[in-house]
């Protein structure tokens, strides 16, 4: 029997298959397709302190083996989340990791406090890397601000803290170390890569927000590189994210240094993908002679 449970700092997951924020709605959307109870953890769509309408459409655009999105954190705010979504989520078996985004350090800290006081959250993921809102990405590009916001949230609540970082920086390891110094339990790597698409015949951007975040299989090598580099730079565990769609992808991220993985865009084009990965994971681990997930994490052999 292969041991699937993993430990991310103070957060224990019964398996490493997690769904990424913004790709699984608030879980209810997916119940017609998947047994959400089997997942290791669920990250509901990012919430903000106050409601946000989000960006004007078109909000997504397909690109080669990927897609751009500029949703703009369309959400009803943390108060509505706690009353309308949390009671349902709290009743589910998987860990609930609530993704939050603030415009200021104070907003992040206030939301961390609210989640700490409310029932249902098992951990918090700080979305300091959303490319589609002004202010969203600044905490993820400036190491000093990153450390401050992580440590502020850490002090404000008892819940385990994950920091979700952007790949759109020159030195990701430096930002990662700042998050570690701030007291993050784990890192989520990576958010989308900033990109754009153009309709040249009409000389128009294809996204309402002009720029958007690239996700899907197209960014997998970038994400894998990020996990590999950061795993060598920090001591805290990593959740790998970026174009993961098959069991091979999952295993590559584990070997590169991820302790768990988040499935994102694949939920859009294969709504039952997570169930398949859960079915296939024990066999893939067994192929490496592993007794558990932790036996393969970060075992890449570099000649």
């Amino acid at each position: 029997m292969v041991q699937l449970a993993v430990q991310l700092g103070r957060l224990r997951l019964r398996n490493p298959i997690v769904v990424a924020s913004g790709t699984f709605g608030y879980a209810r959307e997916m119940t017609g397709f998947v047994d959400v109870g089997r997942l290791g953890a669920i990250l509901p769509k990012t919430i903000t302190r106050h409601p946000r309408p989000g960006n004007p459409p078109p909000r997504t655009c397909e690109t080669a083996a990927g897609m751009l999105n500029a949703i703009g954190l369309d959400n009803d705010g943390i108060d509505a989340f706690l009353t309308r979504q949390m009671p349902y989520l709290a009743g589910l078996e998987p860990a609930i990791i609530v993704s939050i985004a603030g415009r200021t350090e104070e907003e992040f800290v206030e939301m961390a406090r609210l989640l700490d006081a409310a029932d249902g959250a098992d951990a918090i993921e700080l979305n300091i890397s959303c490319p589609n809102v002004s202010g969203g990405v600044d905490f993820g590009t400036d190491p000093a601000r990153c450390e401050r916001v992580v440590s502020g949230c850490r002090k404000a609540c008892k819940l385990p803290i994950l920091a979700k970082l952007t790949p759109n920086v020159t030195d990701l390891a430096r930002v990662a170390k700042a998050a570690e110094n701030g007291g993050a339990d784990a890192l989520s790597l990576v958010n989308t890569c900033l990109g754009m698409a153009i309709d040249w015949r009409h000389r128009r951007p294809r996204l309402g927000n002009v720029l958007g975040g690239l996700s899907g299989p197209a960014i997998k090598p970038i994400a894998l590189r990020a996990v590999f580099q950061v795993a060598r730079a920090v001591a805290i565990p990593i959740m790998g994210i970026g174009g993961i769609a098959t069991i091979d992808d999952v295993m590559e991220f584990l070997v590169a240094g991820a302790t768990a993985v988040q499935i994102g865009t694949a939920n859009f084009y294969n709504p039952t993908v997570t169930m398949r990965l859960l079915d296939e994971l024990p066999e893939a681990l067994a192929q490496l002679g592993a007794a558990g997930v932790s036996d393969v994490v970060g075992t890449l052999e570099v000649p």
Partner: protein
Amino acid sequence: MTSFQGTPTYPDHAWHGNATVLENVQIARATFRIRLASPPLAERIVPGQFLMLRLPRRDDPLLGRPLALYAVVPDASGRPHAVDVVYLIIGRMTSRLREVPAGAKLDVWGPLGNGFPPDEAEHLVMVAGGIGQTPFLSLGREFLGMQRYGKPPRAVPVAKKATLCYGARSAEFLAGVSDFEAAGIEVHLATDDGSRGHRGLVTDLIAPLVAKSPWPCRIVCCGPEPMIAATARIAQRLAIPCQVSLETPMACGIGACFSCVARIRDESGNWDYRRTCVEGPVFDAQHVVFDNEELGAPSAREAE
């Protein structure tokens, strides 16, 4: 089924799997009808709902495409067995889709979205433009009492008459007209170039038709947004109920991605972005904020 105006609803049980292609045939210029074997989908889907369709084992094109139910096809014993959807060749995915032979398998999930509500309609007036006629064959059949849809089959008050007003660029793009006629649906056509039917806009046909009808009319509409907006204005002027099916770019079709939003008014007149896939695609016309309308501020939401 739930109301198009209600809170988001998600299917208790949707189907995702490989569906065998039974037919993939051209029915008009650049327009194909594809038949997919899937009893679980065929028995659940109702008119106005859609499914997502994807070429399997490929990362490019990556995303599924939403396609509205055209017809539910029974097997020899009369049980729902397959679904027909109609697509227009537009881009990379549909160009590949036309090459898919019978016997091949496609990745399919659904049924998705909320269908047209089974409200009373003594005279059902279906207004379609472009490829927007596709949801109306099954709806017309349902309202004329010829076929029932859903599990358990939903009850729909039988209409005295169903009419399709259908506009396209030219005659060669008109797809499935004989299917509608065979279902007992009265068809009025319009083309931009006058190659068949009225020369001009399909919306020109609505007011005279309603004026001549001896019964109270209800309009349902699907097509390009300017045409939907025009139909909504006509319905408002004539004070007759009107529901519209919106087509917005979708990534997932299941409510997860928040891409496919349209501006929808609530009861107090404020608007918010709503997901077409799970809160629509059918909305009451009076709730939709169309592109050329004054926006005002979104309801209870701070400005970006």
